């Protein structure tokens, strides 16, 4: 096995300790809060918020350290196990013993650093926002405890160096999401208590389906990879020692790519299957079609929760997972990824245009944006970086959008229906400004953060299509620009309906007010990040569009993300297989793959679809804004007429394509029905069998009793009767008279004598 240790950066122990402290601070905060929170001053909110402040400082500090490392060599990845900082999870007494052993440590690389900093920053501001938004809540301290534990899980997930721990934190986030969505399900003052109770269950269940897929995919990689690897070692195709199973990311990357390379660039079928299972995890957590149904319902949770969990962090974890497992994904899987993502992006965007709940719009927007990221990753290496970049910028502007929406809801006394709002921009200027900035950002307006990532995504889709024409890249290329257009439309629809025009509900309007400082500060900072988070163009006035790379692309580069893995020889080689140049080279499969790889590297270096993509994305942006202006600002086109003209199609979309109903009717009804049937079987057939055995036993008992009484006892009585009968006969001889007895005796004696004499 080639030595790749020189590719890893070594971090001093104190830095690892600092990183370890990042998830531990909120964990400690949780423990304090859950046991003593109620008795702390202000129910402990400042304690946890301050703790998160410290976490934010550490993550940002570590981010700059990582940036310092990556700017020098252009390469940064560090694993704590390599620096002797780690522990064994399953066995302590015999670490590294043969068999079952799971060495665990931290991993810190460009992607991790970026994500960690994003989570740290967003979490802190969400905490800060919550101190205002959740004021007066009945379960205030529990809310803070839960959101703190959630943060712990998310930070842990980012720092995990193996997929098993990633999974553990992943599920822990699911639990906290469950508890936080269900926050109002125990609050009698909430009028949506019933919906909250149903929503939290739905969220956990739906993601659980995906999580189970992920677990299964992990198991496949854990066992089938070494099996296959060792087989190739025996065949002499890989020159390395035999290996055991591993969950460690870097080892998985390297070994998987060695297997693929030894196979001549072709992924074995099991790897495709396993990759699809892992992608199942993303589908669940990142709310991709068809498991997206939980996310809109998850809006029953408090708005800061929606901002943090269901926009910025947890749902992005699915995308993060794809980033962490990209070298394991075969081209087929990537095509599926692109297709699913592209479809979800458009599909959710259409629904987003019809929703009137302010949070509902943002929820569908989140699904759509996640579709962008997923589709982008499915489009190959450039898309990988673009998708992950979008994950980061999206975290900024979407959390800001949610918090702003929260601010609006707070200002309007928990009114969420946009039809009752209007003209709020004067009453809530800061909220309005933040929301506008972030809407522009999500729409991909140049100079705003979203532009840099979205532009790259569309470029990657175009690039992917020209490189490898398949259903996935085609879906991405066609659907994503359309979805981007709709994104602009529904975001401006939201802005116009909420902040412009005349107030539509006087009751709401009268009470509307700007939010307190802790909330406005939070959204202002996040809006600033939504503006500058992608690329700080003030620093680079000469190239404001970031054509030469942004901070993210400097830290995360597909060529260097996975040490010891040459993507051009693995995933991308497969994608490039259809490029005519490669086929022209002919020769062996390995040679072909190598040639394809060469071509691919060339292609990526020279490729710059920026211009095309930028024109496309600007065009869709303008169309979207124009539509929104016409319909909702200038009201030239009456929305009611437009929807009327769309007819059945609109009804179909407005009802979310009836997917919830379909799931309810098929999966849920089916499962409950099946459960009822099996219960019946259990109670009547399985238990019935047991009872039948019992009854047969009982019947046999009764029969035996009868038999005993009548047959067995009858026999005994018969014997007795016979004896008695003989006795009666014998009785005749027994007169009681001695003389008769003597006569018998004498007669007997004579008979005996006669017998003796005669014989």
């Amino acid at each position, binding site marked *: 096995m080639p030595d790749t240790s020189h590719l890893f950066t070594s971090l001093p122990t104190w830095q690892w300790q600092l990183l370890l402290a990042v998830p531990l601070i909120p964990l400690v905060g949780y423990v304090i809060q*859950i046991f003593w929170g109620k008795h702390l001053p202000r129910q402990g909110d400042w304690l946890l918020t301050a703790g998160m402040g410290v976490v934010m400082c550490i993550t940002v500090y570590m981010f700059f350290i990582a940036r310092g490392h990556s700017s020098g060599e252009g390469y940064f990845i560090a694993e704590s196990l390599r620096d002797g900082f780690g522990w*064994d*999870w*399953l*066995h*302590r*007494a*015999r670490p590294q*013993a043969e*068999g*079952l052993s799971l060495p665990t440590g931290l991993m810190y690389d460009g992607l991790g650093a970026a994500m960690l900093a994003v989570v740290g920053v967003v979490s802190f501001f969400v905490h800060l926002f919550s101190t205002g938004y959740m004021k007066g809540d009945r*379960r205030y301290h529990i809310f803070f405890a839960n959101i703190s534990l959630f943060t712990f899980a998310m930070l842990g997930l980012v720092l995990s160096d193996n997929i*098993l721990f990633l999974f*553990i934190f*992943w*599920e*822990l986030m699911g*639990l906290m999401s*469950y*508890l936080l969505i*269900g926050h109002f*399900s*125990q*609050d*009698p003052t909430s009028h949506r*208590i*019933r919906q*909250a*109770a*149903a929503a*939290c*269950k739905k969220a*956990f*269940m739906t993601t*659980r*389906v995906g999580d*189970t*897929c992920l*677990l*299964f995919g*992990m*198991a*496949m990689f*854990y*066992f089938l990879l070494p099996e296959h690897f060792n087989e190739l070692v025996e065949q002499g195709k890989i020159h390395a020692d035999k290996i055991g*199973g591993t969950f460690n990311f870097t080892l998985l990357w390297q070994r998987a790519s060695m297997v693929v390379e030894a196979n001549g660039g072709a992924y074995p079928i099991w790897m495709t299957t396993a990759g699809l299972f892992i992608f199942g995890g993303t589908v669940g957590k990142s709310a991709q079609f068809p498991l997206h149904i939980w996310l809109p319902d998850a809006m029953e949770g408090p708005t800061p929760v929606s901002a943090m969990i269901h926009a910025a962090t947890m749902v992005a974890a699915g995308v993060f997972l794809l980033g962490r497992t990209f070298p394991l994904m075969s081209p087929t899987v990537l095509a599926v990824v692109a297709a699913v993502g592209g479809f979800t992006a458009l599909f959710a965007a259409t629904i987003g245009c019809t929703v009137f709940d302010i949070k509902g719009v943002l929820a569908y927007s989140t699904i759509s944006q996640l579709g962008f990221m997923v589709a982008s990753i499915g489009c190959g290496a450039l898309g990988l970086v673009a998708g992950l970049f979008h994950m980061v910028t999206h975290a900024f502007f979407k959390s800001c959008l949610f918090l702003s929406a929260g601010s609006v809801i707070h200002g309007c006394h928990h009114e969420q229906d946009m039809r009752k709002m209007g003209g709020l921009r004067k009453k809530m200027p800061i909220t309005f400004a933040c929301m506008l900035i972030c809407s522009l950002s999500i729409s991909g307006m140049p100079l705003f953060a979203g532009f840099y990532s979205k532009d790259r995504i569309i470029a990657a889709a175009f690039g992917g299509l020209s490189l490898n024409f398949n259903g996935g890249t085609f879906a991405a290329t066609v659907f994503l620009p359309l979805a981007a257009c709709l994104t602009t439309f529904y975001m401006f629809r939201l802005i116009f309906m909420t902040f412009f025009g005349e107030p539509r509900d006087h009751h709401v309007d009268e009470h509307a007010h700007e939010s307190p400082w802790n909330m406005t500060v939070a959204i202002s900072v996040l809006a600033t990040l939504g503006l500058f988070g992608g690329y700080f163009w003030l620093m680079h006035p000469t190239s404001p569009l970031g054509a030469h790379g942004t901070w993210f692309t400097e830290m995360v580069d597909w060529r260097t993300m996975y040490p010891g893995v040459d993507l051009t020889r693995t995933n991308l080689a497969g994608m490039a297989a259809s490029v005519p140049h490669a086929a022209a080279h002919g020769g062996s499969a390995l040679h072909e793959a190598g040639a394809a790889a060469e071509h691919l590297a060339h292609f990526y270096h020279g490729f710059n679809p920026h211009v095309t993509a930028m024109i496309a994305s600007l065009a869709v942006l303008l169309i979207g804004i124009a539509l929104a202006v016409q319909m909702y600002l200038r009201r030239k086109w009456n929305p009611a007429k437009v929807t009327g003209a769309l007819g059945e199609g609109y009804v179909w979309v407005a009802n979310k394509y009836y997917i919830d109903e379909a799931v309810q009717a098929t999966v849920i009804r089916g*499962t*409950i029905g*099946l*459960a009822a*049937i*099996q*219960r*019946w079987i*259990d109670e009547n057939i*399985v*238990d019935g*069998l*047991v009872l039948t055995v*019992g009854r047969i036993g009982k019947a046999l008992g009764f029969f035996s009793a009868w038999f005993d009484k009548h047959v067995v006892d009858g026999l005994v009585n018969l014997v007795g009767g016979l004896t008695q009968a003989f006795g009666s006969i014998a009785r005749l001889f027994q007169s009681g008279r001695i003389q008769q007895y003597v006569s018998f005796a004498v007669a007997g004696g004579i008979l005996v004598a006669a017998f003796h004499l005669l014989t």
Partner: protein
Amino acid sequence: MDSFTVLNHSSILAWITFIPLIGMAAVLCVPRTNMSVIKGITYVATFVPLVLATVVYFGYDTNFQGYQYAQEVPWIKLGSFEVFWRVGIDGLSLPLVWLTTILLLVAVPASESVPRLSKAYYALLLLLEVGILGVFISLDYFLFYVFWEVMLLPMYFLIGIWGGPQREYAAIKFFLYTLAGSVLMLVALVAMYLDQGTFSIPQMMAIGKAGGWTGPSLLGMTFTTWVFWFLFIAFAIKIPSFPFHTWLPDAHVQAPTPISVILAGILLKLGGYGLIRACFPIVPHAFTDFAFALGVLGVISIVYGAYVALGQSDFKRMVAYSSVSHMGFVLLGMAALTEFGMKGAALQMFNHGTSSAACFLVVGVIYDRAHHRDLNAFGGVAQPMPRYWALSTVAFFASLGLPGMAGFVSEALTLVGSFQSADTRFQILVLISCLGVVLTAAYILWALQRVFLGPLNEKYKDYKDITGREIFSLAPLLFLCIFLGIFPFYLLDWMDIGVKDLMSILLLGK
């Protein structure tokens, strides 16, 4: 005299086993009106074994291959018929011994709510502990069988006297079902004794390892196959595996809370423990022949149990069926014949012991207040009882196998281990059992929603939150659930050698 590898001799296991018996005798001597003294004695008689078991736990040498704290004393001798008091523990039995002592201690405060509580109840409880501990420490098959039967009787009375409305029915069903298993075990036991003339389990393992059973074939099945199926059914009833599970829901629903706790927490483990101690290694060749069939039974238990649990409207019945589902993992992991799977199964036994016991305690708490268990009649109970809700969440999520809790480690090890099995058909079994994992989440979350969340049913408005005594019962179990989820090596290190040893025997059958 040593027929097996032993690290050290000690009578501590005998003390652990018989202190409850002494306690029982003491309880019987106290006048029945003096309940506080009786309770005090029971506390002492259950606490001291826990302390001793903890001493054994920390004194255990995790690197030694063989049995520890062993003792071998002749007990019955009639000519060539010899029975020994032959005890010892290894990494497979030690965790279960410890679990037994902790659950019995937990059951004592939980018993306060049992109606018609009396002296006999405590005496029987202590006798039950003797039987269970005896089974776990026995290394002599005869002794094993004797303790197995000893345990049966108090359970019968505990369900039959202190149970719910249909207690007699449930108790008789439990008793007869288990007795049927015991008879099969006895037949196999006698057959094996007649064949090789020994009751020593280590020696039987050695015979099994060497393929030394020479008994005759019968009806076209070999001697070892007969022995295997007889023993397997005897233990499968206890696990309980589909289709031998129907005694369980009835017994659970009728049993009082602490008895349910013991039933789910330990008695079911006797089945699993019996399989790995007294069935598989004794006839390893027969076992490996039928491993796939056992795996299928395990998966059916997982999925079927989960479905039936989903279809229940009785809270306790639901938890009972969840036990069927969870114990299916034990069977699946064992059948996979891999180290991961076997460790997962052994760990799952312990973890299910803590999590299901906690779930039954949780159900008991609400039952004591509402006096019914109809899931559909509750609603919003979390509002008057927030602390209860918090603890229940921990208990049920532990049962659900949430990562970070103990159940996840064992379930994941089992699934991953089964996947690794040399028999590739197991990969399909794992895929199917994943359905069970999803369904588990479904029935647990649905139950939580129906009981705790949503609008409050006015009837439950004035319910008192969980009391200190109830927390005292629940807290140690929940602590174990979380602690072992984070630090699983506190058990896995102990099990390591035992499992490797076992695997070395079983894999010979391959």
